[in-house]
């Protein structure tokens, strides 16, 4: 047998073995969850070791990283991995329903369109109210469900995967191949992009809009057809799809286009300096068709402004307010507002009686503490504050020490490859490559700084954008590791590539295998698929028929299940109410008054309240959770082994 065919056979066997192991692992995990619905969360020791999953992934992707295998083997290897990564959301849903907040409320937004037959902005409950202002993804789900005959739930489960698997890899390949000039480097760029720590593929609006957005930039800046009006026409259609699919993506794409245009002007000016002109000749010699670009930019800007001032006004105002109040005020604090004087402290009344109920707002400092505070507190160090916050989040997250170590090592490796790759590509830089690097590099830094503002905590999501500016340099650095075909270099190269994939996958915040393996002390009810049992789904259906659009008291778990599937207004964003309902041994007048004020008609409780916490608090004392059956004004309207609903019989 031909030696090449022999080695190819090994490659095929590796991929197929990896796939078989993955399937066995998946079936085993899903069957364990199916058998444990009454006893959740499933403990780690009941599940097969995570090593099985990683062995399967390594077997699948290893042939792609090895130059000795032929193209078909390497393509099979890469696309098997892409399939597993992109369809992870649907494949790894333990109870076969859409899970986590975005998909659950996306389902609601889609259901409202399908049930009524019409799209109406700002309808629905919870997150769906905001989501319904951007109807691209829900309409896609409705169309897929209607044309295919599958249920809307299944359309939400699989729709995003189908969309992204069909288009995204090919688009990324075209995008990066145009910059890096060869198919081989284009494929590696595709692989590196999929090592991103933000590679979430669950049904989320950004996941669809980013495809349209990247395609638009590809058409006007990268494609060979960028100098034609027809390209402007097609890019405008994609721009419209971006705008009506997702707010944040639209703003990023707008800023991206603006930054590229501004950089082009800067480069033209800078290249007049003789020494610089030699270095940047390749960059500046790239012609930008200003007439067509300006036309597209104006069209996109008008579409974005139009949508932001009408249907998307709510989100636009939220971003502007958030940016002003949080980000800019942290960087440029107003001295007068920040100073607390000792004389003012003396006039603060002493806090007596019960402690404040709100746990979202900062606990007021005591007069003694305020008196000790220096009159001119030092300016907060935004960078150290950001780093501390990231560190705190990582430590509090569902990571094992070994996983933190792997991620840490790979961050250092990736930064080294990025720097080395940048040096290697310095003389081949194209305008789009350096433009992307500057824009997304700035965005990455800004993202880290924004961590100090909780609403702008985009670390886990921003790499889906910002990797675009880094991929070409990472590829250059990575490929340089095996520029001489020795076994040692090949091994180092494969280990580095696989390590990047593993670390990126470890960081992905939902849909990955790690979410199954949760230590008891780190389990939370927030957007967790491991609690979405068929009983919970039944409760949500019952709520849909009985409490649709009514107001309810509940916490994170109720918000994500009954709120999303049952279309009930769960008052999760009122921490005083949540804590008052679940934490006290009895209902205080203040809590009852707030329920009356909020038109609360039902209170939901569930068995996990006493054992598992969430962003809204908890675990709550078991004694406090027994009070619901003792109230004369509450009737247990729904009862199951997991969830109970108490109907408020009288106006309290």
């Amino acid at each position, binding site marked *: 047998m031909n030696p090449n065919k022999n080695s190819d056979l090994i490659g095929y066997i590796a991929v197929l073995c990896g796939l078989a192991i993955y399937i066995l692992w998946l079936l085993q995990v899903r069957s364990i969850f199916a058998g444990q619905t009454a006893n959740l969360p499933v403990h780690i020791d009941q599940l097969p070791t995570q090593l099985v999953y990683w062995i399967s992934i390594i077997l699948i992707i290893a042939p792609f990283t090895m130059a000795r295998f032929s193209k078909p083997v390497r393509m099979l290897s890469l696309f098997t991995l892409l399939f597993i990564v992109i369809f992870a959301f649907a494949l790894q849903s333990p109870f076969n329903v859409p899970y986590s907040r975005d998909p659950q409320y996306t389902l609601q937004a889609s259901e409202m369109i399908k049930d009524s037959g019409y799209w109406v902005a700002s309808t629905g409950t919870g997150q769906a109210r905001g989501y319904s202002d951007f109807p691209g993804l829900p309409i896609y789900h409705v169309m897929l469900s209607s044309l295919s005959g599958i249920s809307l739930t299944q359309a939400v489960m699989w729709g995003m995967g189908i969309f992204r698997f069909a288009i995204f890899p090919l688009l990324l390949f075209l995008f990066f191949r145009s910059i890096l000039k060869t198919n081989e480097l284009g494929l590696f760029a595709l692989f590196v992009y999929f090592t991103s720590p933000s590679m979430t593929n669950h049904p989320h609006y950004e996941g669809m809009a980013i495809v349209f957005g990247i395609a638009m930039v590809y058409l006007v800046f990268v*494609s060979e057809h960028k100098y034609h009006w027809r390209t402007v026409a097609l890019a405008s259609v994609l721009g419209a*799809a971006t705008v009506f699919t997702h707010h944040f993506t639209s703003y990023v794409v707008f800023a991206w286009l603006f930054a590229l245009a501004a950089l082009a002007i800067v480069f033209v000016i800078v290249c007049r300096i003789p020494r610089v002109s030699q270095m940047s000749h390749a960059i500046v010699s790239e012609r930008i068709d200003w007439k067509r670009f300006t036309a597209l930019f104006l069209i996109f800007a008008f579409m974005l402004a139009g949508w932001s001032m009408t249907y998307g006004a709510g989100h636009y105002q939220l971003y502007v307010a958030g940016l002003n109040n949080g980000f800019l005020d942290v960087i440029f604090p107003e001295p007068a507002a920040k100073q607390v004087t000792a004389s003012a402290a003396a006039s603060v009344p002493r806090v007596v009686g019960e402690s404040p109920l709100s746990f979202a707002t900062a606990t007021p400092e005591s007069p003694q503490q305020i008196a000790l505070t220096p009159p001119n507190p030092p300016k907060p160090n935004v960078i150290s504050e950001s780093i501390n916050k990231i560190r705190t989040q990582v430590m509090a997250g569902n990571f094992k020490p070994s996983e933190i170590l792997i991620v840490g090592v790979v961050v250092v490796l990736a930064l080294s490859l990025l720097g080395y790759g940048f040096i290697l590509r310095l003389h081949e830089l194209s305008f789009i490559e350096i433009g992307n690097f500057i824009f997304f590099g700035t965005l990455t830094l800004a993202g880290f700084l924004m961590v100090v503002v909780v609403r702008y905590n985009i670390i886990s999501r921003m790499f889906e954008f910002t990797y675009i500016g880094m991929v070409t340099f990472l590829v250059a650095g990575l490929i340089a590791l095996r520029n001489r075909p020795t076994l040692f270099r090949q091994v180092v190269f494969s280990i580095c590539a696989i390590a990047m994939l593993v670390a990126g996958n470890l960081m992905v915040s939902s849909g990955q295998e790690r979410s199954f393996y949760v230590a008891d002390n780190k389990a939370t009810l927030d957007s967790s698929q491991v609690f979405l049992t068929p009983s919970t789904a039944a409760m949500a259906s019952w709520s849909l028929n009985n409490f649709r659009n009514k107001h309810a008291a509940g916490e994170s778990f109720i918000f994500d299940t009954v709120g999303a599937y049952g279309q009930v207004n769960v008052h999760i964003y009122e921490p005083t109410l949540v804590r008052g309902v679940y934490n006290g041994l009895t209902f205080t007048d203040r809590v009852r008054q707030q329920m009356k004020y909020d038109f609360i008609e039902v209170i939901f409780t569930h068995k996990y309240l006493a054992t598992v916490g969430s962003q809204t608090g908890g675990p709550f004392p078991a004694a406090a959770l027994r009070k619901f059956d003792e109230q004369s004004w509450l009737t247990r309207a729904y009862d199951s082994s997991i969830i109970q609903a108490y109907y408020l019989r009288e106006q309290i």
Partner: protein
Amino acid sequence: MITLTTKRIYLGIAGLFALNAALFLVPIVPLRLATAIGILFLTPGVFVVRILYPAQKLESLEGLVLTMLASVALNLLFMFGLNVVVHVPFNDLAILVSLAALSAFFALADFVVCSNRGGRRK
């Protein structure tokens, strides 16, 4: 003049819609899902790309990507526009008929452009 390739494309797209409609009556879910994906991802983008970019100037892979992108984007925007402007509801039949009409419009445009280009199109 319409070439064999063009005829095949027209027939293929018409077949997709016809098969999807037939599967309303005989629900074979995997087959209907395949036709649904075909409709959503290939039409009317295949005609739009042919109109905008003469075949010999577009690499096949790029053509496929642009076809899928244009199809999904136009289908979404068209159904959204119909729903908001002329109140066509989102139901099974309305969606199928509307998308078929959209594809027919672009097929006709492609036919006209194709005829004008004459022998230049392969």
